């Protein structure tokens, strides 16, 4: 066992948990209407709790056990057989379980942004439980658990496919079944607190050092490079988004600025272990602009109320980064090099994207239909437009100054 690597992954586990709680929770809560603040936080928080237990019970085993190429088995259910002695690589397996658990927490929580302000809390918990078992764990097995995409040598360093693509695609599917918020797109309230949203975004940025840096599973130059390219992509995308906004609307909004950051972070995630600083810079330029237009396109052209733009930011970003990982890994762009040719690698990346998108879309759709028939998905319209989900669903008021 390597103590230094263990020290860094212990830290990374804390950082990635911090991304969801309170990071992502605040980021999303700041963007919704005041009367749905508690509801949004409770959704992220509740998912974190549910995901942890599900991961312990079966999720980890489905993702990281067995010889099967498409799905793990239940040999490690309840972490049976994971002792103090078991290692994965040169860190304790129990720590690897913990680190991976924080990924299993944030991924379904990312989807919250799609269905806030109208969904039933029970539906959120139920959908997330099934989703982790039937979508997240299998895809993780394919890519990180020694499954078929791993065999093909797909590049997904920290989860462009496993995390962001699955979350983005599911966002669209769920919204299609759930429907838009009442009044969308005519009546459209601005975020109730960019201050809170910025606080969350900044926490996500910081936590991402553990997300991408920790995915090196070691405290070495690889981890160092990962956080540097991650940071450069984030900073660059922030500026790109800001300047487009400034140019288009005359004003650089803070909500736009922080959204650029998240776009840059999501996009660099799959590539962060394979590229160099220049690659991070390029991904920042591309994500800041492409995700910018994706938001307007999905929301106001396609009129899909993916309320906080999970697909436009995470989905588009994660897929973009995955497709470019091979190219930017090449020496030409100062990348760390690759065994396959750039073309072959990119084909593999493409296969990975298609497989994950299609699989996720289908399974998520089935999950939504089941949940709808069992619980129903939406709160009463009166609750949605009047008291809000804070009082209606949780019986609490977010602010009492």
């Amino acid at each position, binding site marked *: 066992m390597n103590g230094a690597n263990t020290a860094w992954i212990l830290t990374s586990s804390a950082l990635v948990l911090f991304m969801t709680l309170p990071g992502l929770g605040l980021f999303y809560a700041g963007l919704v209407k005041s009367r749905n603040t508690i509801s949004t936080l409770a959704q992220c928080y509740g998912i974190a709790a549910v995901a942890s237990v599900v991961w312990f019970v079966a999720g980890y085993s489905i993702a990281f056990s067995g010889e099967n190429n498409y799905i793990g088995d239940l040999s490690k259910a309840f972490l049976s057989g994971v002792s103090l002695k078991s290692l994965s690589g040169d860190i304790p397996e129990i720590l690897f379980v913990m680190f991976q658990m924080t990924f299993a927490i944030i991924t379904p929580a990312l989807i919250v942004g799609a269905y806030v302000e109208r969904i039933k809390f029970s539906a959120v918990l139920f959908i997330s439980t099934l989703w982790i078992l039937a979508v997240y764990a299998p895809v993780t097995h394919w890519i990180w658990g020694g499954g078929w995409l791993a065999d093909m040598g797909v590049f997904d360093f920290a989860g462009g496919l496993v995390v962001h693509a699955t979350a983005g695609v599911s966002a669209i599917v769920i919204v299609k079944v759930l429907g838009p918020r009442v009044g969308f797109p005519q009546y459209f309230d601005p975020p109730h607190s960019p201050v809170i949203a910025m606080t969350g975004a900044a926490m996500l940025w910081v936590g991402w050092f553990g997300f991408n840096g920790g995915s090196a599973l070691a405290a070495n130059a690889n981890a160092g490079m990962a956080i540097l390219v991650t940071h450069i992509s984030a900073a660059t995308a922030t500026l790109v*988004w800001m300047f*487009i906004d400034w140019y288009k*609307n005359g004003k650089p*909004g803070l*909500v*736009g600025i922080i959204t650029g950051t998240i776009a840059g972070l999501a996009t660099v995630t799959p590539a962060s272990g394979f590229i160099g600083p220049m690659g991070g810079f390029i991904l920042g330029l591309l994500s800041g602009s492409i995700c910018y237009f994706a*938001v*307007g396109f999905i929301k*106001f052209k396609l009129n899909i109320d993916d309320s906080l*733009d999970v697909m436009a930011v995470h989905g588009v970003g994660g897929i973009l980064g995955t497709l470019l990982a091979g190219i930017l890994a090449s020496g030409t762009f100062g990348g760390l090099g690759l065994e396959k040719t750039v073309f072959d690698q990119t084909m593999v990346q493409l296969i990975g994207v298609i497989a994950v998108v299609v699989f996720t879309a289908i399974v998520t759709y089935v999950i939504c239909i089941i949940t709808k028939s069992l619980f129903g998905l939406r709160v009463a319209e009166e609750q949605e437009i009047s008291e809000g989900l804070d009082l209606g669903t949780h019986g609490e008021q977010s602010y009492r100054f």
Partner: protein
Amino acid sequence: MKLIRAIIKPERLHAVKDRLNEVGIKGMTVSEVKGFGHQKGKTEFYRGNPVQVHFLPKIQIFLAVTDDKKDEVINVITEAARTGKYGDGKIFVNNLEEVVRIRTGEKGEEAL
């Protein structure tokens, strides 16, 4: 006695208050309100996309005065609150039948 209620732009509050003190107004009550009128609502943006905001922040000054002070107060407020742009606001006056000062129980003009 008269009840004067003025709706003004937030940034004019300091000026109006100071001028009122100069003319000997010792008391007033203000509150935050939102207004809608000729002045157009603002356009904010959400991630690069426009969002219309219809109601604009205003300040309401609520003021009881003796009949003789009425016109002076109206003039003072009008001058101090005016910027000449849409949204400067309005002053509403109506009759006040009775006033009580809670601390002393005094009634009428001396309660002001």
